[in-house]
């Protein structure tokens, strides 16, 4: 486990395109992942993230473009020779082999001599608390144990890159949280490149150094969890990341301000969007202040969550806002109330292209309410 090697666990996709006939699954993907980084490929199902991972593993071949690992183009390298390990969603444990045989299999295929093989299996098993289970068959294990065996089989080879394809999706919620922590710990310990495919933003946000958000075969944004959350590159990312999801209000620019039936927000300085342009304003549920503010609304629904409450507000223009509110606030459905915004944390998007517009707003005057 030399640190020198971990540095070349760098992965690069260049203009990678994958099509099954006319059905394009991945488009012109450019992605550079640093060695030792934990990167999640996040997106809804069918977004091309799994195909991307499989192309990296060598289980699928790009239609065009190149994929390199550690600086070497691997397009024509067999999966087993790419020095990557993969953990499958189904775990793909070999049912007819014991846990020990499962873990030893990659070593056997690499011609590692038996004594060393046993030693390394033992070590991997210890680090994953599998020692007692070594002589069992996969079907005699619980889901979590199987998951750990799958990890062990990847771990034992000490590969440059770990590929994980939704590895936690078959576990129950509690176990999933536990395994998340274990994975973070594991990554911290071995510092190999982890590429983690998931549709669960919570997993991506909590574990990753960086997240690549994909949609319909196109990379939407590649950045740290904070970047992706705080500066979503486009409407898709904005809508996909965050729970409850970001509120999106359709309006347009006029007279140096964003106009929506319920609210008007003057742009502050810079180069504001041209008048007449159709825009989308994004506000996260936690970025609304209830009780006071320039705008009026009526409470449609209150969902108490214990530590907070989620409130749906009917505002003018027929839109509904989902708002996160302090559990202590006395709110009841049907009531009218005032609300305001944290203007520094608003997001603005071009309604046509969906792209992010960097704009600043000045706090609206109470009277400016449209």
């Amino acid at each position, binding site marked *: 486990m030399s640190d020198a090697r971990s540095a070349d666990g760098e992965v690069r996709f260049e203009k990678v395109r994958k*099509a*099954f*006939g*006319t*059905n394009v*699954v991945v488009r012109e993907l450019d992605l550079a992942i640093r060695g030792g980084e934990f990167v999640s490929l996040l997106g809804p199902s*069918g977004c091309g993230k*799994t*195909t991307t991972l*499989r192309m990296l593993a*060598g*289980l*699928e*071949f*790009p*239609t065009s473009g190149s994929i390199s690992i550690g600086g070497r183009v691997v*397009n*024509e*390298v*067999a999966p087993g020779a790419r020095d990557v390990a993969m953990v499958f969603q189904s775990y793909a444990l070999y049912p007819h082999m014991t846990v020990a045989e499962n873990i030893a299999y990659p070593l056997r295929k690499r011609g590692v001599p038996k004594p060393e093989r046993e030693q390394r299996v033992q070590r991997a098993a210890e680090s994953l608390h599998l020692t007692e289970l070594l002589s069992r068959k996969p079907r005699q294990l619980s889901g979590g144990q199987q998951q750990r065996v799958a990890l062990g089989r990847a771990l034992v080879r000490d590969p440059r890159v770990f590929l994980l394809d939704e590895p936690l999706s078959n576990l129950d919620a509690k176990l999933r949280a536990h395994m998340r922590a274990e994975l973070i710990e594991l990554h911290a310990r071995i510092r190999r490149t982890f590429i983690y495919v998931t549709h669960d933003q919570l997993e991506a946000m909590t574990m990753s150094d960086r997240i690549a958000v994909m949609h319909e075969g196109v990379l939407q944004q590649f950045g740290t969890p904070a970047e992706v959350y705080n500066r979503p590159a486009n409407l898709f990312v904005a809508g996909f990341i965050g729970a409850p999801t970001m509120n999106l209000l359709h309006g347009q620019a006029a007279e140096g301000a964003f106009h929506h039936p319920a609210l008007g927000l003057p742009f502050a300085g810079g180069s504001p969007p041209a008048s007449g342009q159709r825009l989308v304003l994004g506000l996260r549920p936690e970025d609304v202040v209830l009780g006071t503010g320039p705008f009026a609304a009526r409470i449609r629904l209150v969902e108490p969550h214990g530590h907070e409450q989620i409130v749906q507000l009917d505002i003018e223009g027929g839109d509904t806002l989902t708002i996160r509110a302090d559990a202590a606030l006395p709110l009841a459905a049907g009531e009218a109330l005032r609300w305001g915004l944290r203007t520094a944390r608003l997001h603005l998007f071009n309604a046509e292209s969906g792209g992010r517009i960097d704009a600043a707003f000045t706090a609206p005057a109470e009277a400016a309410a449209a």
Partner: protein
Amino acid sequence: MSSSSLPAAPSHPSRRAATAADRAAVNPLDRGYALLGVLLIAPTVLIFCAVIIYPLVSALYLSLFSIFTPTLAGSFVGLRNYAELAGSPEFWRSLLNNLIWTVLTLTLQVVLGVLAALMLNQAILFRSLARSLILFPYFVSTVVAVLVWRWLFNDLYGILNHTMMWAGILDMPLDWLGAMPNAMVSVVLVGAWKYFPFVVIAVLARLQTIPEQLYEAATIDGAGAWGRFWDVTLPQLRDVLVVVILLRAIWDFKEFDLIYLLTGGGPIIGTQTLPLMVYKEAFGMNEMGRASAVAVAMMLVMLVFMLVYFRVLKARGEEPR
């Protein structure tokens, strides 16, 4: 089936287009895999060509000749064999017999099969033994089945005649195989006996997957046993029954051994079906060309069944199984 990696799963929406991409595959690794795949299927393809495709084409070719079997001397006669068939009452009678046999035996197989499956799906004592006994006829050789049944049907010493006479159903032994319509009835009965276990297994497997809740819900809704069968069981069985009926129709239609050994197609041609006619023309009448024409004609009739089968599977969005 998700968009799995290697072979695009057959149900993949882009399945047709995938082949186009395959042709365009440039990755040597991918090409190597394809080559290996072709290599693995090569023995199959070779054997298929040699023993199925070639004979199939030859059958068409042979049907255009008049061939004397013992010497295999033949002369080209064009479509005359077919013209003769079209004007031959024996051919039409055989086709009719073929259809009668198929429809009757198939109906019995399905009815008996579903009933037996329902029965075996209940908790009865020694169920697995019962199931084995019911299954056995399907696997036993047709030769054995026919010998046993001919012995049962025997006019003088057959247990069947004696049991029926003892029970007062008959007062004279019945000629089960030598006269019409008895011969057809007997053949149909033996066919049903031999092949209904196929339906039993298929239906039983499906019955075991019907969720118990469906029955509970129906019971709560006030359905009796009959209602539960009609409204829950039968709709659940529909899919499996369609496939079973089509498969068995195809197999029953081409049945040779059972009928040939039981009645030889007799009396005269009372139970002669097309496969028997092929054999008779080729080796009884020594008219190999005409026999081929009958075989080809039979094939055409069967194509109808097959196309329906293919279509049903396709309509279900399933690959053909």
